[in-house]
């Protein structure tokens, strides 16, 4: 599992690359948490290059989500292949994660739902 960090404005974008199974999950979890420093308030996990994910990989994403929520930050997941999307559906995790087609849609989503909109009120 290779993880690359980019920045889009004030949003941290992590690209995950490879298989997310129990052999890669511990390392992936550490890497993701390491790459998300305290200042990351908005985080996108782009899964476009995740070839495989199973319950172990979903566990990693949930653990990351909990950390991000505790830090009062926000997480979006993007670019799920049909297969990856299916496992989120079957496990009901579509109702837990904010899932977007791509990074742009995720950025719009952050705007729409966040305090940034509040300022307009």
């Amino acid at each position: 599992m290779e993880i690359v960090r980019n920045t889009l404005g004030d949003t941290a974008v992590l690209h995950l690359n490879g298989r997310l199974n129990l052999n890669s999950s511990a390392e992936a979890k550490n890497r993701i948490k390491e790459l998300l420093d305290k200042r990351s308030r908005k985080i996108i996990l782009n899964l476009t290059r995740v070839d495989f994910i199973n319950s172990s990989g979903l566990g990693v994403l949930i653990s990351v989500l909990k950390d991000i929520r505790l830090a009062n930050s926000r997480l979006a997941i993007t670019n799920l292949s049909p297969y990856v999307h299916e496992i989120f559906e079957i496990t009901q995790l579509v109702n837990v994660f904010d899932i977007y087609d791509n990074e742009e849609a995720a950025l719009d989503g952050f705007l729409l739902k966040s305090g940034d909109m509040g300022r307009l009120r």
Partner: protein
Amino acid sequence: MEVYRFCFPSNLKYLDRVYDITSKILQDMPIDLMAKRRILTAVSEAVTNSLVHGNKENSDKTVRLTFQQNDGYLQIDVDDQGKGFAPQITSLIESAKKLEERGRGIPIMKAYVDEVRFKYMKRKGMKVSLRKNLA
């Protein structure tokens, strides 16, 4: 009848090997790509459980993975050398609500193949059998 069998020590690094070899075995079977990915996922869940819960990652213990292609179905058996267990029913809805990090392996197997059976083999270990009907 075709039979493919692999035995490997209980080390997590074999998860990738299992994935590669399972892909190869499924490659020429009369199953669509999405179904192949589902089978791959179900196999990974069963093998992970055998390595971790069954054999406790003890590398002196072996996991045995067997594929048998018959006319009507593909049967995949995952055998470990552990103490066995009685499967509980878990709700994916509950797990999602509670942000559980674990407990989705068996439900995923059930969602992804046509039949999942658990059998404790006396003095041997647990056998998890996945069955996928072929068109």
